[in-house]
């Protein structure tokens, strides 16, 4: 089992330059510690216009800072919105390659298409075509990274032959993932040989079904890149405390805050009737299902908060379902004081990580 951090970078009102800077600095401090503690990944989302919920609109810059501050932790640029109004594919290829070089080959590239009208409408993107443009982008990216020259004529973008530079440090290219929130996207991931970057907190049963299907289908996939990245990651909240009650209470506060902010987002389906966005169960509903008032005991049991023993039980359950990596959200609207986030990371590294470690945890850093 691998462990990662997952950043939306949520910032409460009222926004001041100092507050935004403080939250960014808090995140960097957490990443630096996580690197020392032996966490495997740090992921940063790409979101735009999502007030309070996510101020992470330039994740490549945040991740560059992370890479510069750390030695070992892998940096996940994800997801990059693969919709032409958001990101030109050439720019994605260039900036990811640059980040891979700067991080010394520590980059993972997550792909996706955005789920909110707030974002799609803000860029005047057509929700009907985001799945199609995502498919074009993920087919092109590995070629843009690997081929000396590249040209393309597609439905959503085109370019004459040019040499896209720089090339990534990792050969043949960085591992590729896709965000899995809408039902069925796990199949899209499997059929293209992409890692499944789960962004919902759906219950054990639903996850198990998805993972089984992913594993089954990826065996016969035709990968978009030069290799198959068969990995299943899921997202969770983390608050680890010696006292189970304190840990659960703070963890619930974190989860409830995050979910309340998530439900304020205008999902595409809420306002834009489209066959491309069938499911209301995009991130808000699925996340609420895990921690909201309707959450079952089993779903709450899957949350990584409480004392170390409780968290070990939750992680073991995810491991038994076939999850390879859990990425943790550490804060939302700064409801968890920074010193408690840091203490939670240390305690998790000291008491939980060794249970799942193939290599010894950095005990000194966790003290």
């Amino acid at each position: 089992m691998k462990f990662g951090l997952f950043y939306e970078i949520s910032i409460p009102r009222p926004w001041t330059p100092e507050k935004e800077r403080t939250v960014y600095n808090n995140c960097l401090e957490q990443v630096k510690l996580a690197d020392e503690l032996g966490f495997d990944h740090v992921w940063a989302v790409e979101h735009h216009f999502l007030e309070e919920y996510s101020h992470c609109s330039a994740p490549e810059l945040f991740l560059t800072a992370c890479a510069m501050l750390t030695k070992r932790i892998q940096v996940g640029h994800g997801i990059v919105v693969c919709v032409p109004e958001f990101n030109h594919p050439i720019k994605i290829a260039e900036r990811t390659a640059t980040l891979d070089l700067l991080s010394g080959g520590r980059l993972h590239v997550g792909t996706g298409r955005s789920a909110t009208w707030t974002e799609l409408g803000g860029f005047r993107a057509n929700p009907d075509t985001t799945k199609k443009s995502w498919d074009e982008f993920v087919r092109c990216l590995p070629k843009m990274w690997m081929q000396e020259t590249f040209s393309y004529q597609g439905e959503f973008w085109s370019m004459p032959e040019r040499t896209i530079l720089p090339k990534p440090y990792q050969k043949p290219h960085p591992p590729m993932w896709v965000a899995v929130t809408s039902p069925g996207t796990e199949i899209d991931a499997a059929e293209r040989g992409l890692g499944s970057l789960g962004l919902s907190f759906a219950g054990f049963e639903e996850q198990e079904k998805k993972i089984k299907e992913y594993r089954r289908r990826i065996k016969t996939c035709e990968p978009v890149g030069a290799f198959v990245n068969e990995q299943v990651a899921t997202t969770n909240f983390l608050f680890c405390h010696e006292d189970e009650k304190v840990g659960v209470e703070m963890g619930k506060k974190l989860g409830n805050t995050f979910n309340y902010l998530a439900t304020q987002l205008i999902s595409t389906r809420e306002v834009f009737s489209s066959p491309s966005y069938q499911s209301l169960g995009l991130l808000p509903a699925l996340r609420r299902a895990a921690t909201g008032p309707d959450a079952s005991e089993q779903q709450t049991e899957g949350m990584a908060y409480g004392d170390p023993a409780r968290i070990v039980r939750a992680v073991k359950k995810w491991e038994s379902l076939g999850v390879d990596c859990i990425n943790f959200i550490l804060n939302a609207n700064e409801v968890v004081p920074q010193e408690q986030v840091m203490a939670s990371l240390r305690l998790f590294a000291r008491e939980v990580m060794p249970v799942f470690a193939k290599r010894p945890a950095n005990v000194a850093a966790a003290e």
Partner: protein
Amino acid sequence: MPLYGTLDITQSSARLPTLAHLDTEAWTLPKAETMQLLIEVPRASTDGLLPKAMHPALPSYVILAVARYPESPTGPFNLAMLRLGSRAGAHPRGFLLGAVASSDTAAKELRARWGFPVETGEVKFLRRHDRVMATVKKGTDTILDCALVNPQPVAGSDVQYINWVTAANAPLDGAIQPLLIQVDPKYTFYRADRGEPQVSTFDATAWNAPGLQLAGPIIGTCCTVDTDLPRIRFVMDPLKPVFLGTRRIRESRADE
């Protein structure tokens, strides 16, 4: 935490519809034709329109809805509504700002039963192959002239209608008091089309939304549905966040 509305409906309760009780009987409305045009509006132009208990939608948007009900307990009528996209706690809602019904009886009943801020006027609804058109007049003034242009078939499952909230006086705990009332119709779809919203006349003041400006169109839908106006299930304190001020009036729709 998220922004809240700024409207204190208790300061203008005399202008709100008044319900005699919260035991409104449900109406069944079969084979209704409903056009909804969703349009973004500048956030500043919605200032003062949303009750303090609710969160604004970000970006701000309104729903212009015109429906033809060929059958109802009061006979056929057309109804036009303006709703403001918002949140009641975690739930997407359309706060009803203004409405016009084509029959006096329907208007009276909708005010008295669900607290719709509805007046009587002329509401025309025309479904054609190239566009669906609606006009609304109060007296001799046209207050809405709109259309859904180039309708294209979609599946009913592609369309999501969000529930409504109205502001009205109603008896609760032995006193008549201003409340927010949730109206949550259900829908069975027979046909659904999608197209581009077009509005040529919109008199914001006539819809109780002075200053509201229409900006970018999002999408329009026109559907044939069996729908209803159900019994009232939830009311909310207009001044408290809904997670603190919501009262369940009845358990479920099972008694309808």
